[in-house]
């Protein structure tokens, strides 16, 4: 009986601790092609934060990011050498690559992709 109550409580706690990824801000992109393998948390790229500061074309034209999620193969070495994110995240325009956990702040184990995309969350998801 106690065991079952404990298990129930544990389940409740688990349910409380795992909020659904459907709450992500619209346009947030999760990048986890290499992060989990490399033992760091995946990267969360917030479109909203960047589009307040830059027009789309700065990243999608000048910085060389393809428009399609998954089409950009970005390694940490690229960023440190000043390509992709590293064109701005260089301690000149934005914070540099040594501040790992500002970008590598995603939940471990999440799949890459655009989160918070459309309005609905269920089987009718567009």
């Amino acid at each position, binding site marked *: *009986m106690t065991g079952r*109550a404990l298990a129930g409580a544990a389940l409740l706690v688990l349910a*409380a601790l795992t909020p659904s990824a459907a*709450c992500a*801000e619209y346009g947030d992109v999760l990048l986890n092609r290499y992060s989990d393998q490399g033992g760091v948390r995946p990267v969360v790229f917030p479109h909203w934060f960047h589009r307040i500061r830059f027009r789309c074309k700065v990243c999608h*034209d000048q910085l060389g990011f393809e428009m399609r999620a998954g089409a950009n193969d970005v390694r940490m070495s690229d960023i440190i050498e000043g390509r992709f994110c590293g064109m701005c995240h260089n301690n000149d325009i934005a914070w540099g690559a040594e501040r790992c956990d500002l970008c*590598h*702040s995603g939940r471990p184990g999440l799949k890459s992709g655009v989160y918070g*995309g459309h*309005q609905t969350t269920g089987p009718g998801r567009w």
Partner: protein
Amino acid sequence: MRTTSLTTKLLSLAALGVMAGPLQAQEGRQVYEQKCAVCHAAGLAGAPRPGNAADWGPRLRAGKASLYRNAIQGTMRGMPPKGGNPDLPEAAVRAAVDFMTATVAAASKPAARPEVARKPAAQTAPAASTAPVRQAVPPAAAPVAAPAIAAPEAAAVAAPAPVQVASASLALARPEPGSGAAAANAFNRLLRPPGKRNLPPAEDGIHDPAVDGTLQLQPPLAAFGAMPRSNAGNRVDWVKALAEGKIAPRWERDKADAAAVVMDLNIVREVKGSMPDVVYPHKQHTEWLDCSNCHPAIFVPQKGANQMSMAAILLGQGCGACHGRVAFPVSECRLCHSKKKDGVAAGSAAPQAEAHR
């Protein structure tokens, strides 16, 4: 009253130290008795009753975070912010929520033998004010004693209304009957409810709240405050925000003052069926984008060369490369389908174009 507030302080001080769990539960119980029980004990105005699994099931499924938020900010369904006690610290509200939700789990025990559960209720309820004092004097002993005490206390809360215990036991016999169907049949169940929009990074489900970096990131609402709102996406009208100068995103990576190269050309696309025709404005798009972002990979720059359908857009083709991912989603039909078919287009298209601009 003074002793209890002193006790609360002692307890919260001790909670900072070694054993946070049982002592917070103690505080939660006190807050519940003094503030929350007025409504929650009897379930006034639909308030979830402690120990009642049917009341709490759907709420618990929404997550502890949303319970906390609703308790602190209040809800449209009748919960006043902090239960109508604005002076109450948020931690105390959370502790009370913890206490009430813990009674749901604990109710499984008294439900098995309700007559036993009801008897200690009569005894513990009058003694409630003295009990915390006894525990607070030897704080080191409290952690050991508290878990044992917690069970009858939980029963004491659940017991005053025997009907609740019965319904709780029914609910436990078949896990959450009806509440599953209630969730499935909830109005607009697939839409993101107002409480889940523009959440700060630590609560959005994709950031790891355990990382310092997550807490240093700017929450969306801190940035969106002064911007014009919309009904979809980030719930910000980005085009309007840019036009009104609320934001000044750079056109060049390293030049703050470079002006955008804007092309003002509307393309009208006639559509099948009864929907208004689509007016595609180059102006609003070239404020943000370079020609090469769309041409020629996504749209061939030639009249009639681009076959489009809403199905393809929903799958991410054509307009769907951005609309539905970062730009406003296709739920905002009339932002694109803005030109009436009957020929008197200008009248209907103009207000939409204005709104868009």
